[in-house]
């Protein structure tokens, strides 16, 4: 079996006697898009900085491709990084920025550099803007250029810290498609920190949810949603009396519900919905609307973060 490309084991980080990370462990497999979620101050960026070798752990280890990025300078050539800020020089053009970073990452052949830069600018849709200073770029264009910058040396793993934060919906879709394309076509492993749960749900195969420096959930999105899923159905009756009658019936059955005027939201597990609905139909109540609800990653996330 192939060794995971990122191994984080019992990672602890204490700053001024406060635990920023408390015994974090997870692995990321090759070609995986791994989502790392959590509320502000949960320790996501600290984890990333430790993995990237920018901070030291108090105890535990964080390995990338079986090595330590803080000690092995050459290993950094296999890793691309998009941090919260784009890391671009405003006074340089897009082409000059990519040229600078490709030289730093050791792409020494000038024709190879030129080929890669043009190919990546084309990929992120900025080829026509290549001679424009980055200072004049919009936030979305900068983000796309940051992705090109992170890929200039053909890395095996790309770490992304909120790549779509602050972007308008259209720019978000472009960046999201780029990330998806990367994992699919270039076999790049992606470690994605994001606040955008819709994005994580669409892109990631597995997620870890971090709360207060601890991982409280680590699984595939499908399994996480299944384990915490609470399906519900909302029935609207013609009059309130009918709704109250159903509430009494549900009380007797021990089924959870939420009554709001002439609407009632019934929560059920797995396939017992027919057990609930059949008697309601038999009671001859006047139903005017039925809506089914399946929870999104957002609901699951809130439940986990709030300890629900």
């Amino acid at each position, binding site marked *: 079996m192939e060794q995971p490309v990122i191994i984080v084991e019992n990672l602890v980080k204490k700053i001024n006697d406060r635990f920023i990370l408390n015994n974090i462990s997870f692995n990321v497999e090759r070609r995986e898009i791994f989502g790392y979620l959590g509320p502000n101050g949960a320790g996501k960026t600290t984890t990333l900085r430790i993995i990237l070798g920018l901070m030291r752990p108090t105890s535990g280890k964080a390995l990338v491709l079986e090595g330590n990025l803080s000690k092995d300078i050459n290993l950094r050539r296999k890793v691309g*990084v998009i941090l919260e*800020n784009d*890391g671009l020089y405003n006074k340089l053009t897009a082409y*000059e920025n990519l040229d600078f970073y490709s030289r730093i990452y050791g792409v020494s052949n000038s024709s190879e550099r030129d080929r890669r830069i043009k190919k990546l600018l084309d990929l992120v849709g900025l080829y026509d803007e290549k001679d424009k200073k980055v200072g004049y770029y919009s936030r979305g264009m900068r983000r796309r250029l940051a992705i090109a910058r992170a890929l200039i040396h053909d890395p095996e793993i790309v770490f992304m810290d909120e790549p779509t934060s602050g972007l308008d919906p259209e720019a978000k879709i472009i960046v999201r498609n780029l990330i998806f394309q990367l994992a699919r076509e270039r076999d790049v492993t992606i470690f994605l920190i994001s606040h955008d749960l819709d994005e994580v749900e669409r892109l990631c195969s597995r997620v870890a949810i971090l709360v207060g420096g601890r991982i409280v959930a680590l699984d595939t999105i499908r399994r996480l949603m299944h384990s915490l899923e609470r399906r519900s159905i909302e029935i609207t009756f013609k009059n309130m009396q009918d709704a109250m009658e159903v509430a009494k019936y549900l009380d007797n059955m021990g089924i959870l519900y939420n009554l709001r005027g002439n609407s009632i939201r019934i929560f059920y597990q797995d396939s017992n919905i027919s057990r609930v609905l059949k008697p309601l139909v038999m009671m001859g109540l006047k139903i005017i609307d039925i809506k089914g609800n399946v929870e999104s990653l957002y609901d699951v996330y809130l439940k986990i973060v709030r300890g629900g």
Partner: protein
Amino acid sequence: MVNISLISTLVKKEFIEVIRDKSLGASLFSILLFMGIFLFTTRERPSYLMNTFIPYISLIIGLIVGFSLSNSIVREKREGVIETILCSPMKLKELWLGKTLSISIMSAVIAVLSTCIILMLNNYEPDLTMIFYILFTVPFFILACIGLLSLIYFYLGMRQIQIANYILFISIFLILFTILKINITTEITWRTINIITSFSVTTFIITFYIIDYADIEKIILTLE
């Protein structure tokens, strides 16, 4: 120990950025203003005073330009460029050296050229000691100061940098004021050249080795 090709890439990039930056124009304007005031006030003075002033003037011009250009480190810290670079194969020492060299070269060139213009306009013929001082001692002193300043800028938080900037500015003005106020008649001799050059070289070498022990985590924590 250090990758020369990485450093030259960084120096080249810094030159391009500075040429395109409007702040260079602003510092050149301040120098022209400074030179104008200096030339106006020294027109009637005897030549021995020129010999006294020139050493200070060239240093101050170099330091003001260097100080202004060093702000790029602060800007890059704020914009997250330093953090991104520290994730690349470039070591902190190479980043520091590239920044220090590029800023020092530009500052020294401007300082030397400005001094030469002042000398020419005053019809002052410098002796060998003065030529050596302007061409070697001044650039080395600027290199040492910028190296130290860059290291300090890497380590300080944004608020601390603002305080440090005020302290540095006030110190430069106090030094300038003291020089102009009291009648110093010490001329540049080979002894003073030796002292300043040795001090500069020692300071630079110490900073060069200190950076090996720099704590990247502390630098990263100042970004917040």
